[in-house]
């Protein structure tokens, strides 16, 4: 971490320390990097001789506190970011096919989209699930579905991200159980559960229980993973949804980090040592349309989080201060009008993510505003990442925009303004209190309304929507989920229920209930129930009875 030593010394430390260590373990993609005209490209460009005093403190070298320039010493010179397209629809079988298609096309990680009943803890045959089964994600009712989902996909070879929040512990348990069946122990599993309930209350809507009970489930997973799953990201603290709900870039950083602070607080409160779990916290941001501001945002978020972990929580390990994040291009900037233009938008936004140093990336498809992506559209989206990675050379040196007056100024500004919000949220009693008071929701809603008004009155131009418009035939190729999927899924669920050992299910569910009523860690009991083929709806049902259901404040 920053000190009085000269910059040159720090550089040497970096070069001989983290860089050398990383190179020994992960060699770079090439021996020598150069531009198309043969100019050599170094790992890093910095303020060379005239070392700025601030440089060491505010930027420093990649992989070194405060990580402004990136979280790894060699960044994309070693390995490109993980290309991870969010996908899931219909049944486990169909989604399994889509996964395999994507892996065949060169995708390097998986990302599961679940349907809404699954995300809210209902089985496919629940009356409230009617019409929603498999519509916007894959329906997973029990371990049987999860086995099908990963059929032929070795869990020791992929990392898997699951966008699952309220029932995150249950899906994680299912993943562990599938791993076991494949012979992959849980300490080898790599991936992420989103597990970020606070932003569900303000921006995403798939909560089940109230904040207190939800926080307990979260800290239970933190604890369980810190003991059993060293490679697993226990949470993905998400700004993406906040941004997509309408916030500005500054608000995205502020509200996400405020939520992050709340999780760290909660974990410390239940007795965890900050350095035992903090390195497994991960983040998720959007990449919107303001090119430089977005790049600055990523850099600012990294720096601000590092400072918070160090100064506020007294984290001792550098790895506790290192913000690793996933990026998704901004769906809300993509239009139903002239949808092919979206490919260009996504390209620029993906590039921002890369220039901002993201660890993984989802590129939206051109049919974003129409339906779930067709296979053809998702292929173009994946190719977009591959072109950026393999053809442009932007990954050949680290944080290439550092030192640009504009970028550094924006980075400072985003950090400063986000911090102002965080102080305000602290004054309100922290993120959970600010959410309950509706502060965060109101801020987001105001920004969303302003954004829409700016489009409506054309002070903000959206090409093809309010300028350069054309008369269009409404002829698109929609991805359609067959309504018959629902009946099929329910049929399989009922079959599974008949085949399983009912007594074992009831026993594990009862055990889960009494654990929920006490304060012992729920993860092991959930795992038992999962292995007995208790369904997600049954487990969530038990927890609903013990923990109650939450009604959101629903602030307008």
């Amino acid at each position, binding site marked *: 971490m920053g000190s009085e030593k000269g910059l040159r010394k720090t550089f040497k430390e970096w070069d001989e320390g983290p860089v050398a260590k990383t190179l020994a373990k992960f060699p770079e993609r090439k021996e020598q990097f150069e531009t198309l005209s043969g100019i050599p490209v170094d790992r890093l460009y910095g303020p060379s001789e005239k070392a700025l005093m601030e440089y060491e403190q505010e930027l420093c070298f990649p992989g070194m506190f405060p990580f402004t320039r990136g979280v790894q010493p060699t960044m994309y010179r070693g390995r490109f970011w993980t290309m991870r397209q969010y996908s899931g629809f219909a049944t486990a079988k169909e989604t399994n096919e889509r996964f395999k298609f994507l892996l065949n096309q060169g995708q390097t990680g998986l990302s599961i989209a679940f349907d*809404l*009943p699954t*995300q*809210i803890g*209902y089985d496919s045959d629940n009356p*409230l*699930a*009617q*019409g*929603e089964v498999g*519509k*916007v994600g894959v329906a997973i009712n029990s371990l049987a579905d999860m086995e099908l989902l990963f059929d032929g996909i070795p869990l020791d070879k992929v990392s898997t991200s699951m966008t699952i929040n309220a029932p995150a512990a249950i899906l994680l348990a299912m993943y562990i159980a599938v791993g076991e069946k494949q012979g992959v122990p849980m300490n080898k599993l790599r991936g992420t559960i989103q597990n970020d309930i606070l932003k*569900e209350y303000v921006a*995403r*809507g*798939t909560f089940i229980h109230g904040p207190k009970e939800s926080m307990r489930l979260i800290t239970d997973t933190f604890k369980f993973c810190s003991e059993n799953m060293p490679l697993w990201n226990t949470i993905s603290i998400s700004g993406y949804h906040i941004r*997509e*709900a*309408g916030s500005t870039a500054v608000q995205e950083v502020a509200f996400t980090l405020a939520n992050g602070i709340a999780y760290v607080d909660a974990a410390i409160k239940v007795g965890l040592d900050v350095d035992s779990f903090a390195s497994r916290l991960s983040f998720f941001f959007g990449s919107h349309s303001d090119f430089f501001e977005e790049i600055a945002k990523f850099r600012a978020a990294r720096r601000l989080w590092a400072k918070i972990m160090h100064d506020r929580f007294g984290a001792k390990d550098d790895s506790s201060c290192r913000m690793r994040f996933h990026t998704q291009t901004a769906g*809300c900037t993509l*239009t*139903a*009008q002239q949808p092919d233009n979206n490919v260009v938008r996504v390209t620029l936004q993906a590039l921002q993510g890369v220039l901002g140093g993201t660890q993984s990336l989802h590129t939206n498809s051109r049919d974003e*505003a*129409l*339906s779930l992506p067709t296979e053809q559209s998702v292929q173009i989206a994946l190719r977009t990442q591959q072109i950026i990675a393999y053809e442009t050379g932007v990954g050949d040196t680290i944080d290439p925009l550092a030192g640009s007056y504009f970028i550094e100024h924006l980075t400072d500004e985003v950090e400063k303004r986000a911090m102002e919000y965080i102080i305000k949220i602290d004054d309100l009693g922290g993120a959970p209190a600010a959410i309950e008071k509706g502060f965060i929701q109101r801020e987001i*809603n105001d920004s*969303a*309304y302003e954004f*829409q*008004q700016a*489009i*409506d009155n054309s002070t903000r131009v959206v090409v093809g*929507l*309010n300028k350069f418009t054309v008369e269009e035939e*409404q002829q*698109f190729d*929609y991805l*359609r*989920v067959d*309504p018959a999927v629902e009946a099929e899924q329910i049929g399989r669920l009922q079959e599974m229920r008949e085949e399983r050992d009912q007594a074992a299910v009831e026993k594990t569910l009862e055990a889960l209930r009494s654990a929920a009523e006490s304060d012992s860690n729920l993860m092991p009991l959930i795992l038992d129930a999962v292995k007995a083929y208790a369904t997600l709806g049954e487990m969530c049902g038990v927890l609903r009875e013990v923990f109650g259901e939450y*009604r*959101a404040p*629903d602030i*307008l």
Partner: protein
Amino acid sequence: MSSSKKIRVLVAKPGLDGHDRGAKIVARALRDAGMEVIYTGLRQTPEMIVEAAISEDVNVIGLSILSGAHNALFPKIMELLKAEGGDNILVIGGGIIPHDDVPALKAVGIAEVFGPGTPLADIVGYIESNVKL
């Protein structure tokens, strides 16, 4: 004394869908156009929506859905609404609704469907010229 009449609108989110950015923006725009807007919040069943519409005696129901469950939920809402004698209510929808689905929705009584990119003024204008007070 029609001068004191106000357009009352129920903006509702049927089903499990959590996309509320559009619904909230539309609600605000209608308020700013002088209407009285009741927002239901998330996760409303067709029964809850119809009950609210009747109790609040609204002139307009605006359904917002982006989760693809419109073909299951909209007809159910229309059916219940008829049974409750709410035929005079103007029902419109918005969100992610494929063009091919629109004719069937109109056939059950959804007056108009507004997709992504619709200027708010168009929605206000549509209501003002089609509402029955």
